[in-house]
Protein backbone atom coordinates (compact mmCIF):
# COMPACT_ATOMS: atom_id res chain seq x y z
CA UNK A 1 0.00 0.00 0.00
CA UNK A 2 2.73 2.39 1.04
CA UNK A 3 4.83 1.44 -1.94
CA UNK A 4 1.94 2.07 -4.28
CA UNK A 5 1.33 5.49 -2.80
CA UNK A 6 4.96 6.44 -3.13
CA UNK A 7 5.04 5.28 -6.70
CA UNK A 8 1.94 7.37 -7.45
CA UNK A 9 3.55 10.40 -5.86
CA UNK A 10 6.64 10.01 -8.04
CA UNK A 11 4.47 9.50 -11.08
CA UNK A 12 2.52 12.67 -10.38
CA UNK A 13 5.71 14.64 -9.83
CA UNK A 14 7.07 13.32 -13.11
CA UNK A 15 3.93 14.32 -14.98
CA UNK A 16 4.01 17.79 -13.46
CA UNK A 17 7.62 18.17 -14.45
CA UNK A 18 6.76 17.18 -18.00
CA UNK A 19 3.95 19.71 -18.17
CA UNK A 20 6.14 22.49 -16.78
CA UNK A 21 9.28 21.85 -18.79
CA UNK A 22 8.05 20.67 -22.19
CA UNK A 23 7.29 24.05 -23.79
CA UNK A 24 10.67 25.51 -22.88
CA UNK A 25 12.49 22.46 -24.17
CA UNK A 26 10.55 22.05 -27.46
CA UNK A 27 10.49 25.75 -28.50
CA UNK A 28 6.94 25.86 -29.77
CA UNK A 29 6.24 28.31 -32.59
CA UNK A 30 2.80 29.64 -33.36
CA UNK A 31 1.18 30.56 -36.65
CA UNK A 32 -2.00 32.65 -36.51
CA UNK A 33 -4.22 32.17 -39.55
CA UNK A 34 -7.34 34.27 -39.87
CA UNK A 35 -9.91 35.21 -42.48
CA UNK A 36 -12.41 33.88 -44.99
CA UNK A 37 -15.09 31.62 -43.57
CA UNK A 38 -15.13 29.72 -46.85
CA UNK A 39 -11.49 28.82 -46.31
CA UNK A 40 -11.55 28.08 -42.57
CA UNK A 41 -12.04 24.37 -43.09
CA UNK A 42 -9.38 24.30 -45.77
CA UNK A 43 -6.94 26.07 -43.45
CA UNK A 44 -7.84 23.68 -40.68
CA UNK A 45 -7.24 20.66 -42.92
CA UNK A 46 -3.86 22.03 -44.00
CA UNK A 47 -2.96 22.75 -40.38
CA UNK A 48 -3.81 19.23 -39.26
CA UNK A 49 -1.56 17.54 -41.79
CA UNK A 50 1.16 20.19 -41.47
CA UNK A 51 1.13 19.67 -37.72
CA UNK A 52 1.95 15.98 -38.08
CA UNK A 53 5.08 16.94 -40.00
CA UNK A 54 5.98 19.83 -37.66
CA UNK A 55 4.75 18.85 -34.19
CA UNK A 56 6.43 21.85 -32.55
CA UNK A 57 4.35 24.37 -34.52
CA UNK A 58 1.10 25.52 -33.04
CA UNK A 59 -1.39 26.64 -35.67
CA UNK A 60 -4.54 28.58 -34.82
CA UNK A 61 -7.03 28.91 -37.67
CA UNK A 62 -10.01 31.21 -37.18
CA UNK A 63 -12.68 32.63 -39.48
CA UNK A 64 -14.62 35.86 -39.34
CA UNK A 65 -14.49 36.73 -43.04
CA UNK A 66 -11.91 37.85 -45.55
CA UNK A 67 -12.11 41.44 -44.31
CA UNK A 68 -11.43 40.38 -40.74
CA UNK A 69 -8.40 38.42 -41.82
CA UNK A 70 -6.95 41.26 -43.89
CA UNK A 71 -7.52 43.77 -41.07
CA UNK A 72 -5.77 41.42 -38.67
CA UNK A 73 -2.82 41.12 -41.07
CA UNK A 74 -2.57 44.91 -41.31
CA UNK A 75 -2.72 45.17 -37.51
CA UNK A 76 -0.04 42.55 -37.15
CA UNK A 77 -2.34 40.28 -35.15
CA UNK A 78 -2.14 37.37 -37.58
CA UNK A 79 0.62 35.81 -39.68
CA UNK A 80 -1.42 34.58 -42.63
CA UNK A 81 -4.73 36.03 -43.83
CA UNK A 82 -7.07 33.78 -45.80
CA UNK A 83 -9.14 35.73 -48.29
CA UNK A 84 -11.61 34.90 -51.04
CA UNK A 85 -11.09 38.33 -52.67
CA UNK A 86 -8.23 40.64 -53.62
CA UNK A 87 -7.22 43.54 -51.41
CA UNK A 88 -9.38 46.63 -51.83
CA UNK A 89 -7.76 49.98 -52.69
CA UNK A 90 -8.50 51.24 -49.17
CA UNK A 91 -6.72 48.30 -47.63
CA UNK A 92 -3.66 48.76 -49.84
CA UNK A 93 -3.41 52.40 -48.72
CA UNK A 94 -3.74 51.40 -45.11
CA UNK A 95 -1.01 48.79 -45.54
CA UNK A 96 1.33 51.40 -47.03
CA UNK A 97 0.65 53.75 -44.12
CA UNK A 98 1.51 51.01 -41.67
CA UNK A 99 4.57 49.83 -43.52
CA UNK A 100 3.14 46.41 -44.20
CA UNK A 101 3.70 44.67 -47.52
CA UNK A 102 0.82 42.24 -48.15
CA UNK A 103 2.12 39.43 -50.32
CA UNK A 104 -0.46 37.55 -52.32
CA UNK A 105 -0.58 33.78 -52.95
CA UNK A 106 -3.34 32.47 -55.17
CA UNK A 107 -3.55 29.06 -53.58
CA UNK A 108 -6.83 27.56 -54.79
CA UNK A 109 -9.96 28.24 -56.84
CA UNK A 110 -13.58 27.92 -55.91
CA UNK A 111 -16.02 27.01 -58.70
CA UNK A 112 -19.66 26.12 -58.23
CA UNK A 113 -21.45 23.95 -60.76
CA UNK A 114 -25.18 24.25 -61.44
CA UNK A 115 -26.66 20.84 -62.21
CA UNK A 116 -29.92 19.33 -63.44
CA UNK A 117 -31.17 15.81 -64.16
CA UNK A 118 -29.53 14.25 -67.26
CA UNK A 119 -32.94 14.09 -69.00
CA UNK A 120 -33.56 17.80 -68.54
CA UNK A 121 -33.41 19.36 -72.04
CA UNK A 122 -32.02 22.59 -70.62
CA UNK A 123 -28.28 22.94 -71.11
CA UNK A 124 -27.52 26.59 -70.49
CA UNK A 125 -28.69 29.46 -68.31
CA UNK A 126 -27.71 33.05 -67.69
CA UNK A 127 -26.90 34.32 -64.22
CA UNK A 128 -30.16 36.29 -64.28
CA UNK A 129 -32.19 33.19 -65.11
CA UNK A 130 -30.45 31.30 -62.32
CA UNK A 131 -31.25 34.13 -59.98
CA UNK A 132 -34.95 34.08 -60.93
CA UNK A 133 -35.08 30.29 -60.49
CA UNK A 134 -33.39 30.22 -57.11
CA UNK A 135 -35.40 33.18 -55.81
CA UNK A 136 -38.58 31.36 -56.75
CA UNK A 137 -39.71 33.84 -59.42
CA UNK A 138 -39.55 31.24 -62.21
CA UNK A 139 -41.35 28.18 -60.89
CA UNK A 140 -41.91 26.09 -64.00
CA UNK A 141 -39.45 24.59 -66.48
CA UNK A 142 -41.82 25.65 -69.25
CA UNK A 143 -40.86 29.31 -68.76
CA UNK A 144 -37.34 28.33 -69.75
CA UNK A 145 -38.45 26.27 -72.74
CA UNK A 146 -38.57 22.94 -70.93
CA UNK A 147 -41.47 20.58 -70.15
CA UNK A 148 -44.42 21.85 -68.10
CA UNK A 149 -43.18 20.76 -64.69
CA UNK A 150 -42.58 22.51 -61.39
CA UNK A 151 -38.96 23.39 -60.62
CA UNK A 152 -37.56 21.85 -57.44
CA UNK A 153 -34.84 24.10 -56.04
CA UNK A 154 -32.07 22.39 -54.11
CA UNK A 155 -29.76 24.46 -51.95
CA UNK A 156 -27.18 23.78 -49.27
CA UNK A 157 -27.83 24.52 -45.60
CA UNK A 158 -27.35 28.06 -44.25
CA UNK A 159 -24.01 27.23 -42.66
CA UNK A 160 -22.43 26.19 -45.94
CA UNK A 161 -19.85 28.46 -47.57
CA UNK A 162 -21.21 27.31 -50.91
CA UNK A 163 -24.68 28.51 -49.93
CA UNK A 164 -23.32 31.93 -49.01
CA UNK A 165 -21.16 32.18 -52.13
CA UNK A 166 -24.07 31.27 -54.39
CA UNK A 167 -26.32 33.75 -52.60
CA UNK A 168 -23.83 36.59 -52.89
CA UNK A 169 -22.73 35.94 -56.47
CA UNK A 170 -25.90 34.75 -58.15
CA UNK A 171 -28.90 35.79 -56.09
CA UNK A 172 -27.46 39.12 -54.99
CA UNK A 173 -25.40 39.58 -58.16
CA UNK A 174 -22.15 40.29 -56.36
CA UNK A 175 -23.57 42.63 -53.74
CA UNK A 176 -23.17 40.71 -50.47
CA UNK A 177 -25.35 43.16 -48.56
CA UNK A 178 -28.26 43.04 -51.01
CA UNK A 179 -31.81 42.28 -49.85
CA UNK A 180 -32.44 39.25 -52.08
CA UNK A 181 -32.79 35.78 -50.57
CA UNK A 182 -33.18 32.19 -51.70
CA UNK A 183 -36.81 31.22 -52.18
CA UNK A 184 -38.16 29.88 -48.87
CA UNK A 185 -39.41 26.89 -50.86
CA UNK A 186 -35.83 25.85 -51.67
CA UNK A 187 -35.03 22.44 -50.22
CA UNK A 188 -32.01 22.73 -47.93
CA UNK A 189 -29.93 19.61 -48.29
CA UNK A 190 -27.54 18.52 -45.57
CA UNK A 191 -24.61 17.87 -47.90
CA UNK A 192 -23.38 18.31 -51.47
CA UNK A 193 -23.71 14.56 -51.86
CA UNK A 194 -27.41 14.79 -50.94
CA UNK A 195 -27.87 17.40 -53.69
CA UNK A 196 -26.01 15.17 -56.16
CA UNK A 197 -28.28 12.21 -55.27
CA UNK A 198 -31.52 14.15 -55.48
CA UNK A 199 -30.60 15.77 -58.80
CA UNK A 200 -29.66 12.36 -60.18
CA UNK A 201 -33.06 10.93 -59.16
CA UNK A 202 -35.38 13.86 -59.82
CA UNK A 203 -35.91 15.26 -63.31
CA UNK A 204 -37.49 18.42 -61.88
CA UNK A 205 -34.58 19.36 -59.65
CA UNK A 206 -31.90 22.01 -60.05
CA UNK A 207 -29.06 22.33 -57.59
CA UNK A 208 -25.52 23.56 -57.14
CA UNK A 209 -22.39 22.14 -55.58
CA UNK A 210 -18.62 22.43 -55.52
CA UNK A 211 -17.02 21.20 -58.75
CA UNK A 212 -15.58 18.15 -57.02
CA UNK A 213 -19.02 16.52 -57.09
CA UNK A 214 -19.64 16.64 -60.85
CA UNK A 215 -20.44 13.18 -62.20
CA UNK A 216 -22.25 11.55 -65.10
CA UNK A 217 -25.39 11.15 -62.97
CA UNK A 218 -26.06 14.89 -63.25
CA UNK A 219 -26.04 17.27 -66.19
CA UNK A 220 -23.88 20.35 -65.74
CA UNK A 221 -25.46 23.57 -66.95
CA UNK A 222 -23.36 26.05 -68.93
CA UNK A 223 -23.59 29.50 -67.40
CA UNK A 224 -23.27 32.94 -69.02
CA UNK A 225 -23.07 36.35 -67.43
CA UNK A 226 -25.60 37.70 -69.98
CA UNK A 227 -27.56 36.19 -72.83
CA UNK A 228 -25.05 37.64 -75.32
CA UNK A 229 -21.90 36.45 -73.58
CA UNK A 230 -20.53 32.94 -74.04
CA UNK A 231 -22.00 30.06 -72.05
CA UNK A 232 -19.26 28.31 -70.10
CA UNK A 233 -19.13 24.86 -68.52
CA UNK A 234 -17.33 24.74 -65.17
CA UNK A 235 -14.10 22.79 -65.53
CA UNK A 236 -10.59 23.06 -64.18
CA UNK A 237 -9.53 25.08 -67.26
CA UNK A 238 -12.46 27.50 -67.36
CA UNK A 239 -12.24 28.16 -63.64
CA UNK A 240 -8.49 28.63 -63.90
CA UNK A 241 -8.93 30.98 -66.87
CA UNK A 242 -11.65 32.82 -64.92
CA UNK A 243 -14.14 32.50 -67.79
CA UNK A 244 -16.66 30.55 -65.71
CA UNK A 245 -18.82 33.17 -63.96
CA UNK A 246 -19.57 31.43 -60.65
CA UNK A 247 -16.02 31.04 -59.49
CA UNK A 248 -13.40 32.94 -57.57
CA UNK A 249 -9.78 32.57 -56.57
CA UNK A 250 -8.82 31.94 -52.95
CA UNK A 251 -5.77 33.71 -51.55
CA UNK A 252 -3.30 33.54 -48.72
CA UNK A 253 -1.73 36.86 -47.69
CA UNK A 254 1.44 37.25 -45.66
CA UNK A 255 3.35 40.33 -44.56
CA UNK A 256 6.32 40.60 -46.90
CA UNK A 257 8.06 37.47 -48.12
CA UNK A 258 7.15 34.64 -45.74
CA UNK A 259 9.98 33.36 -43.54
CA UNK A 260 10.61 30.37 -41.30
CA UNK A 261 7.61 28.27 -40.36
CA UNK A 262 5.23 30.63 -42.17
CA UNK A 263 7.13 29.96 -45.38
CA UNK A 264 6.99 26.24 -44.60
CA UNK A 265 3.24 26.46 -44.24
CA UNK A 266 2.69 28.42 -47.48
CA UNK A 267 5.00 26.01 -49.31
CA UNK A 268 3.03 23.12 -47.87
CA UNK A 269 -0.23 24.61 -49.16
CA UNK A 270 1.29 24.66 -52.67
CA UNK A 271 2.84 21.19 -52.38
CA UNK A 272 1.12 18.25 -54.14
CA UNK A 273 -0.13 17.11 -50.74
CA UNK A 274 -1.50 20.56 -49.89
CA UNK A 275 -3.18 20.82 -53.28
CA UNK A 276 -4.64 17.37 -52.77
CA UNK A 277 -6.24 18.66 -49.59
CA UNK A 278 -7.64 21.54 -51.66
CA UNK A 279 -9.33 19.01 -53.93
CA UNK A 280 -10.61 17.00 -50.97
CA UNK A 281 -12.21 20.13 -49.54
CA UNK A 282 -14.06 20.60 -52.86
CA UNK A 283 -12.04 23.49 -54.18
CA UNK A 284 -10.07 23.60 -57.43
CA UNK A 285 -6.33 23.12 -57.00
CA UNK A 286 -4.19 25.81 -58.59
CA UNK A 287 -1.54 23.37 -59.77
Amino acid at each position, binding site marked *: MKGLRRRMAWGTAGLLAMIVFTPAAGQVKTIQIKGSDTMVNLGQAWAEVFNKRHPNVNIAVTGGGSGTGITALLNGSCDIAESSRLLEAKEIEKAKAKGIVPTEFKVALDGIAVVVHPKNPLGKLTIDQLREIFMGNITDWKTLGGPKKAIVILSREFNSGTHIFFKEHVIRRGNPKGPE*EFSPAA*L*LMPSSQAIADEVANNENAIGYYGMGYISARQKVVAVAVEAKSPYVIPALESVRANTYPISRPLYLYTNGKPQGVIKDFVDFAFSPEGQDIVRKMDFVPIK
Partner: protein
Amino acid sequence: MRLRTLKEFVIEKLVFLSGIASIVFVALIFIFLLKEGISVFREIAPGAFLGGKFWYPVSDPPKLGILPLILGSLLVTAGAIVLAVPLGIAAAFYIAEVAPRRLRDILKSIIEILAAIPSVVLGFIGMITLVPYIKNIFGLPTGLTAAAGSIMLAFMALPTIISISEDAINAVPREYKEGALALGATHWQTLYRVIIHGALPGIIAAAMLGIGRVFGETMAVMMVTGNAAVIPKSLLRPVRTLTATIAAEMGEAVRGSSHYSALFAIGIVLFLISFAINVTADAFLNRGKRK
Protein backbone atom coordinates in the same frame (compact mmCIF):
# COMPACT_ATOMS: atom_id res chain seq x y z
CA MET B 1 -24.34 -4.60 13.79
CA ARG B 2 -23.32 -0.95 13.67
CA LEU B 3 -21.31 -1.60 10.54
CA ARG B 4 -24.46 -2.93 8.95
CA THR B 5 -26.51 0.19 9.74
CA LEU B 6 -23.66 2.32 8.47
CA LYS B 7 -23.56 0.33 5.27
CA GLU B 8 -27.28 0.68 4.82
CA PHE B 9 -27.07 4.39 5.50
CA VAL B 10 -24.43 4.83 2.81
CA ILE B 11 -26.31 2.73 0.30
CA GLU B 12 -29.51 4.59 1.02
CA LYS B 13 -27.82 7.93 0.42
CA LEU B 14 -26.19 6.70 -2.79
CA VAL B 15 -29.50 5.51 -4.14
CA PHE B 16 -31.04 8.82 -3.14
CA LEU B 17 -28.30 10.70 -5.00
CA SER B 18 -28.80 8.61 -8.12
CA GLY B 19 -32.51 9.31 -7.96
CA ILE B 20 -31.97 13.03 -7.51
CA ALA B 21 -29.30 13.16 -10.22
CA SER B 22 -31.75 12.98 -13.10
CA ILE B 23 -33.75 15.88 -11.66
CA VAL B 24 -30.55 17.89 -11.30
CA PHE B 25 -29.57 17.10 -14.88
CA VAL B 26 -32.92 18.18 -16.27
CA ALA B 27 -32.77 21.40 -14.24
CA LEU B 28 -29.21 22.08 -15.41
CA ILE B 29 -30.09 21.43 -19.03
CA PHE B 30 -33.03 23.79 -18.84
CA ILE B 31 -30.98 26.50 -17.14
CA PHE B 32 -28.28 26.11 -19.80
CA LEU B 33 -30.85 26.36 -22.60
CA LEU B 34 -32.35 29.46 -21.02
CA LYS B 35 -28.98 31.08 -20.49
CA GLU B 36 -27.88 30.53 -24.10
CA GLY B 37 -31.24 31.09 -25.73
CA ILE B 38 -32.76 34.00 -23.87
CA SER B 39 -30.46 36.60 -25.40
CA VAL B 40 -32.13 36.22 -28.78
CA PHE B 41 -35.11 38.05 -27.32
CA ARG B 42 -32.99 41.15 -26.95
CA GLU B 43 -32.96 41.34 -30.74
CA ILE B 44 -36.36 40.02 -31.58
CA ALA B 45 -39.65 40.06 -29.65
CA PRO B 46 -40.92 36.62 -28.58
CA GLY B 47 -44.03 37.16 -30.70
CA ALA B 48 -41.98 37.91 -33.81
CA PHE B 49 -39.76 34.92 -33.08
CA LEU B 50 -42.60 32.45 -32.66
CA GLY B 51 -44.87 34.00 -35.30
CA GLY B 52 -42.33 35.16 -37.92
CA LYS B 53 -42.76 33.56 -41.32
CA PHE B 54 -39.18 33.73 -42.59
CA TRP B 55 -36.11 31.88 -41.39
CA TYR B 56 -32.94 33.42 -42.84
CA PRO B 57 -30.59 33.14 -39.86
CA VAL B 58 -27.32 34.08 -41.57
CA SER B 59 -28.53 37.08 -43.55
CA ASP B 60 -27.72 40.60 -42.46
CA PRO B 61 -29.93 41.51 -40.64
CA PRO B 62 -31.08 37.95 -39.86
CA LYS B 63 -34.74 36.98 -40.14
CA LEU B 64 -35.50 34.69 -37.23
CA GLY B 65 -39.14 33.62 -37.57
CA ILE B 66 -39.73 30.02 -36.54
CA LEU B 67 -43.43 29.68 -37.37
CA PRO B 68 -42.70 27.53 -40.47
CA LEU B 69 -40.47 25.31 -38.33
CA ILE B 70 -43.07 24.88 -35.57
CA LEU B 71 -45.77 24.11 -38.12
CA GLY B 72 -43.40 21.74 -39.93
CA SER B 73 -42.74 19.81 -36.73
CA LEU B 74 -46.43 19.70 -35.83
CA LEU B 75 -47.49 18.58 -39.31
CA VAL B 76 -44.93 15.77 -39.50
CA THR B 77 -45.86 14.65 -35.97
CA ALA B 78 -49.59 14.76 -36.70
CA GLY B 79 -49.13 12.69 -39.84
CA ALA B 80 -47.03 10.13 -37.99
CA ILE B 81 -49.56 9.86 -35.18
CA VAL B 82 -52.51 9.38 -37.52
CA LEU B 83 -50.63 6.45 -39.03
CA ALA B 84 -49.01 4.98 -35.95
CA VAL B 85 -51.68 5.24 -33.25
CA PRO B 86 -54.47 3.15 -34.83
CA LEU B 87 -51.94 0.66 -36.18
CA GLY B 88 -50.11 0.46 -32.86
CA ILE B 89 -53.24 0.01 -30.76
CA ALA B 90 -54.63 -2.63 -33.10
CA ALA B 91 -51.30 -4.45 -33.00
CA ALA B 92 -51.25 -4.25 -29.19
CA PHE B 93 -54.74 -5.76 -28.98
CA TYR B 94 -53.77 -8.52 -31.35
CA ILE B 95 -50.65 -9.36 -29.38
CA ALA B 96 -52.29 -9.15 -25.96
CA GLU B 97 -55.64 -10.76 -26.65
CA VAL B 98 -55.84 -12.56 -29.95
CA ALA B 99 -52.49 -13.97 -31.01
CA PRO B 100 -51.55 -17.51 -29.98
CA ARG B 101 -48.79 -17.66 -27.39
CA ARG B 102 -45.93 -18.61 -29.73
CA LEU B 103 -46.78 -16.02 -32.35
CA ARG B 104 -47.08 -13.42 -29.61
CA ASP B 105 -43.51 -14.05 -28.43
CA ILE B 106 -42.19 -13.82 -31.97
CA LEU B 107 -44.10 -10.60 -32.61
CA LYS B 108 -42.86 -9.03 -29.42
CA SER B 109 -39.24 -9.70 -30.19
CA ILE B 110 -39.61 -8.40 -33.74
CA ILE B 111 -41.11 -5.19 -32.38
CA GLU B 112 -38.13 -4.87 -30.07
CA ILE B 113 -35.84 -5.19 -33.07
CA LEU B 114 -37.79 -2.43 -34.81
CA ALA B 115 -37.17 -0.21 -31.79
CA ALA B 116 -33.46 -0.94 -31.97
CA ILE B 117 -32.94 0.21 -35.58
CA PRO B 118 -30.95 3.47 -35.46
CA SER B 119 -32.91 6.40 -36.86
CA VAL B 120 -30.18 7.32 -39.33
CA VAL B 121 -30.55 3.87 -40.89
CA LEU B 122 -34.31 4.27 -41.16
CA GLY B 123 -33.75 7.72 -42.65
CA PHE B 124 -31.35 6.35 -45.21
CA ILE B 125 -33.72 3.56 -46.21
CA GLY B 126 -36.52 6.11 -46.44
CA MET B 127 -34.45 8.38 -48.63
CA ILE B 128 -33.59 5.61 -51.07
CA THR B 129 -36.91 3.74 -51.21
CA LEU B 130 -39.79 5.78 -49.82
CA VAL B 131 -38.96 9.20 -51.25
CA PRO B 132 -38.92 8.20 -54.96
CA TYR B 133 -42.03 6.08 -54.32
CA ILE B 134 -44.00 9.01 -52.87
CA LYS B 135 -42.89 11.20 -55.76
CA ASN B 136 -44.14 8.72 -58.37
CA ILE B 137 -47.40 7.74 -56.66
CA PHE B 138 -48.61 11.28 -56.12
CA GLY B 139 -46.92 12.75 -59.21
CA LEU B 140 -45.09 15.32 -57.11
CA PRO B 141 -42.18 17.52 -58.13
CA THR B 142 -40.18 15.96 -55.29
CA GLY B 143 -40.68 13.11 -52.84
CA LEU B 144 -38.85 14.90 -50.03
CA THR B 145 -42.03 15.79 -48.19
CA ALA B 146 -43.70 15.92 -44.79
CA ALA B 147 -45.49 12.69 -45.71
CA ALA B 148 -42.17 10.86 -46.10
CA GLY B 149 -41.15 12.13 -42.67
CA SER B 150 -44.47 11.09 -41.15
CA ILE B 151 -44.21 7.55 -42.48
CA MET B 152 -40.63 7.11 -41.25
CA LEU B 153 -41.57 8.51 -37.85
CA ALA B 154 -44.63 6.29 -37.62
CA PHE B 155 -42.24 3.34 -37.85
CA MET B 156 -40.23 4.79 -35.01
CA ALA B 157 -43.23 5.47 -32.79
CA LEU B 158 -44.81 2.04 -33.31
CA PRO B 159 -42.66 0.04 -30.86
CA THR B 160 -43.32 2.55 -28.05
CA ILE B 161 -47.04 2.63 -28.72
CA ILE B 162 -47.38 -1.14 -29.06
CA SER B 163 -45.44 -2.15 -25.96
CA ILE B 164 -47.01 0.42 -23.62
CA SER B 165 -50.53 -0.22 -24.93
CA GLU B 166 -49.98 -3.94 -24.54
CA ASP B 167 -48.90 -3.46 -20.93
CA ALA B 168 -52.03 -1.40 -20.32
CA ILE B 169 -54.23 -4.11 -21.84
CA ASN B 170 -52.57 -6.81 -19.76
CA ALA B 171 -53.04 -4.69 -16.66
CA VAL B 172 -56.83 -4.76 -17.01
CA PRO B 173 -58.04 -6.99 -14.13
CA ARG B 174 -58.86 -10.50 -15.26
CA GLU B 175 -62.21 -10.41 -13.47
CA TYR B 176 -63.49 -7.80 -15.93
CA LYS B 177 -62.81 -10.06 -18.85
CA GLU B 178 -64.09 -13.18 -17.12
CA GLY B 179 -67.18 -11.29 -15.92
CA ALA B 180 -67.97 -10.10 -19.42
CA LEU B 181 -67.48 -13.56 -20.93
CA ALA B 182 -69.58 -15.12 -18.15
CA LEU B 183 -72.40 -12.72 -18.97
CA GLY B 184 -72.45 -14.11 -22.47
CA ALA B 185 -70.45 -11.44 -24.33
CA THR B 186 -68.41 -12.64 -27.28
CA HIS B 187 -64.65 -12.21 -27.32
CA TRP B 188 -64.92 -9.21 -29.64
CA GLN B 189 -67.64 -7.59 -27.49
CA THR B 190 -65.46 -8.10 -24.41
CA LEU B 191 -62.56 -6.50 -26.22
CA TYR B 192 -64.18 -3.32 -27.37
CA ARG B 193 -66.78 -2.84 -24.65
CA VAL B 194 -64.83 -3.83 -21.54
CA ILE B 195 -61.09 -4.19 -21.99
CA ILE B 196 -60.60 -1.06 -24.05
CA HIS B 197 -62.26 1.00 -21.31
CA GLY B 198 -60.04 -0.42 -18.63
CA ALA B 199 -56.91 0.10 -20.72
CA LEU B 200 -57.81 3.50 -22.17
CA PRO B 201 -55.68 5.72 -19.90
CA GLY B 202 -52.65 3.53 -20.58
CA ILE B 203 -53.33 3.55 -24.30
CA ILE B 204 -53.59 7.34 -24.33
CA ALA B 205 -50.32 7.53 -22.40
CA ALA B 206 -48.76 5.21 -25.00
CA ALA B 207 -49.93 7.49 -27.78
CA MET B 208 -48.56 10.55 -25.97
CA LEU B 209 -45.17 8.92 -25.44
CA GLY B 210 -45.19 7.95 -29.10
CA ILE B 211 -45.86 11.58 -29.98
CA GLY B 212 -42.97 12.63 -27.76
CA ARG B 213 -40.66 10.21 -29.54
CA VAL B 214 -41.77 11.47 -32.95
CA PHE B 215 -41.58 15.14 -32.05
CA GLY B 216 -38.00 14.94 -30.83
CA GLU B 217 -36.71 12.75 -33.65
CA THR B 218 -34.12 14.47 -35.82
CA MET B 219 -31.96 12.44 -38.12
CA ALA B 220 -34.51 10.50 -40.15
CA VAL B 221 -36.65 13.61 -40.52
CA MET B 222 -33.76 15.71 -41.71
CA MET B 223 -32.97 13.16 -44.39
CA VAL B 224 -36.44 12.83 -45.93
CA THR B 225 -38.42 16.05 -45.44
CA GLY B 226 -36.50 18.39 -47.75
CA ASN B 227 -35.91 21.00 -45.02
CA ALA B 228 -37.51 23.95 -46.80
CA ALA B 229 -38.56 26.55 -44.26
CA VAL B 230 -41.96 27.31 -45.80
CA ILE B 231 -45.30 27.28 -44.05
CA PRO B 232 -46.55 23.82 -45.06
CA LYS B 233 -49.79 23.72 -47.04
CA SER B 234 -50.13 19.94 -47.18
CA LEU B 235 -48.41 16.70 -46.22
CA LEU B 236 -47.16 16.43 -49.78
CA ARG B 237 -44.93 19.50 -49.51
CA PRO B 238 -41.42 19.80 -48.12
CA VAL B 239 -41.13 21.02 -44.53
CA ARG B 240 -38.38 21.92 -42.10
CA THR B 241 -38.71 20.77 -38.50
CA LEU B 242 -37.42 22.39 -35.31
CA THR B 243 -35.08 19.49 -34.55
CA ALA B 244 -33.62 19.33 -38.05
CA THR B 245 -32.94 23.07 -37.94
CA ILE B 246 -30.87 22.77 -34.79
CA ALA B 247 -29.02 19.71 -36.04
CA ALA B 248 -28.24 21.21 -39.44
CA GLU B 249 -27.15 24.65 -38.29
CA MET B 250 -25.61 24.29 -34.85
CA GLY B 251 -22.30 23.01 -36.14
CA GLU B 252 -21.30 26.27 -37.78
CA ALA B 253 -23.29 28.95 -35.95
CA VAL B 254 -20.89 31.54 -34.58
CA ARG B 255 -20.87 31.35 -30.79
CA GLY B 256 -22.66 34.29 -29.23
CA SER B 257 -24.30 35.40 -32.49
CA SER B 258 -28.05 35.88 -32.70
CA HIS B 259 -28.21 32.77 -34.91
CA TYR B 260 -26.56 30.75 -32.13
CA SER B 261 -28.93 31.95 -29.43
CA ALA B 262 -31.91 31.56 -31.77
CA LEU B 263 -31.02 27.88 -32.15
CA PHE B 264 -30.96 27.55 -28.36
CA ALA B 265 -34.28 29.35 -28.18
CA ILE B 266 -35.64 26.72 -30.59
CA GLY B 267 -34.27 24.21 -28.09
CA ILE B 268 -36.34 25.88 -25.37
CA VAL B 269 -39.47 25.67 -27.52
CA LEU B 270 -38.78 21.98 -28.20
CA PHE B 271 -38.10 21.33 -24.54
CA LEU B 272 -41.36 22.98 -23.46
CA ILE B 273 -43.44 21.11 -26.03
CA SER B 274 -41.88 17.71 -25.19
CA PHE B 275 -42.29 18.49 -21.50
CA ALA B 276 -45.99 19.21 -22.00
CA ILE B 277 -46.43 15.98 -23.96
CA ASN B 278 -44.70 13.92 -21.28
CA VAL B 279 -46.64 15.53 -18.43
CA THR B 280 -49.90 14.73 -20.22
CA ALA B 281 -48.78 11.14 -20.77
CA ASP B 282 -47.84 10.84 -17.09
CA ALA B 283 -51.16 12.21 -15.96
CA PHE B 284 -52.97 9.54 -17.98
CA LEU B 285 -50.67 6.78 -16.77
CA ASN B 286 -51.30 7.73 -13.14
CA ARG B 287 -55.03 7.97 -13.66
CA GLY B 288 -54.92 4.45 -15.03
CA LYS B 289 -53.05 3.16 -12.01
CA ARG B 290 -55.39 4.71 -9.46
CA LYS B 291 -58.39 2.86 -10.86
